[in-house]
């Protein structure tokens, strides 16, 4: 593992890819590998892009990446697609929209399934982002499907989050319900060549007015057409402006702290959730279920005792 890490840090693509896999599956030696990685982490910007399927996120990301490339920056892209809860498999198709980037050796694209990891996904992404950072990538773009809690978690890892909407789909209302809007630092109304753009922008503005905007920076709404190439320079400018905003209001050390805190909490949450699905938990629960059925205890007492047993076992 140490050799693999050294080669990855030297920029060898195959090694970077295999290191990511080894860390993902927590292979032997992975904590040592991450230790080496963290020594080389620079704290490069992480930009999250979320939105419902079909909103054009991948195409937008591709364009954003290309702009970073013209600035000579090396770009890492993490593209998440949903894993089937039934089969555990996934079709990861975001790369299709990023064809222009594929033979560019300054771009690394890694696709991941959500893998039913709720709570652990953000932590896995965080590790991959740190690896790419340490191995020489200057900006990391993370694409997720905006359907719920995962996105809110990932927003803890990404410093700038772009929420992508499409005119007329009623996404705005759906997303408000899922809390997605609260995580958007920039709202992009993509496919702005479609009818209904102005209305969507108006709805968003109205919704933002309703929210608490007291001390915060006003959230920009950008109209884009990723395919036509419109609005992309404005979007890119907003990304840079947000970065500057972060750097002036929260110094590098603060951002770094938030990142590690977010990652730590996500790691703990992921481990707890994985723990709960282990067989031994159900076994330990059975006596408590018996006691509940017999009216000998209540849920609160039972869960307290069960928790104690689980944690004790987990820490051993």
């Amino acid at each position, binding site marked *: 593992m140490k050799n693999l890490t050294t080669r990855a840090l030297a920029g060898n693509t195959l090694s970077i890819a295999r290191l990511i896999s080894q860390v993902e599956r927590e292979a032997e030696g992975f904590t040592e590998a991450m230790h080496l990685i963290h020594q080389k982490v620079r704290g490069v910007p992480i930009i999250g892009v979320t939105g419902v399927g079909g909103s054009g996120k991948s195409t937008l990301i591709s364009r954003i990446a290309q702009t970073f490339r013209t600035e000579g920056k090396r770009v890492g892209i993490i593209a998440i697609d949903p894993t089937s809860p039934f089969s555990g498999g996934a079709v*990861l198709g975001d790369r299709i929209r990023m064809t222009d980037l594929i033979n560019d050796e300054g771009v690394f694209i890694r696709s991941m399934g959500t893998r039913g990891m709720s709570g652990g996904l953000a932590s896995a992404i965080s590790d991959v982002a740190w690896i790419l950072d340490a191995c020489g990538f200057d900006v990391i773009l993370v694409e997720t499907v905006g359907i719920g809690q995962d996105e809110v978690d990932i927003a803890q890892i990404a410093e700038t989050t772009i929420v992508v909407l499409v005119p007329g789909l009623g996404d705005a209302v759906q997303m408000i319900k899922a809390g997605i809007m609260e995580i958007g630092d920039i709202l992009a109304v993509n496919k702005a060549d479609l009818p209904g753009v102005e209305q969507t922008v108006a709805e968003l503005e109205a919704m933002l007015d309703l929210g608490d905007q007291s001390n915060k920076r006003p959230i920009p709404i950008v109209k884009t057409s990723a395919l036509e190439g419109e609005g992309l320079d404005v979007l890119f400018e907003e990304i840079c402006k947000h970065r500057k905003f972060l750097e002036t209001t929260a110094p590098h050390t603060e951002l770094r702290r938030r990142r590690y805190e977010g990652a730590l909490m996500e790691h703990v949450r992921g481990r707890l959730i994985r723990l709960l699905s282990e067989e031994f938990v159900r076994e330990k629960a059975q006596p408590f279920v018996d006691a509940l059925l017999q009216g000998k205890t209540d849920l609160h007492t039972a869960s307290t005792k069960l928790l104690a047993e689980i944690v004790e076992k987990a820490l051993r």
Partner: protein
Amino acid sequence: MDRPIRVVVAKPGLDGHDRGAKVVARALRDAGMEVIYTGLHQTPEMIVDTAIQEDADVIGLSALSGAHMTLFQDILDLLKEKEASDILVIGGGIIPDDDARLLEKAGVAAIFGPGAPTEGIVDFIRKRAKR
């Protein structure tokens, strides 16, 4: 912790008939694998770069245009050059038996012709994938 088998499904060259590739992609997903579906018109370089970055265990190539001999060989050569020959390469599409034998000699692990049952492909991958 285990992770799913990762398969790149790609159509090299100019052939635009992707139904077979999509059928296989879905079958692999239903079998619990992660399929990196790269779509049409991929060059050998693009396919190999993708497989490397994604740390794929398998590359599945679909070719109906007749260009399989050159394209598949290019991919095998590139994998060797990039020290990634441990990635299992399988193929399907319109490939005559004689060509299939030659390709297998050259390093393609198996060719699954039209009508090949997807269960057979799934089983093969589970047995032979690199991880």
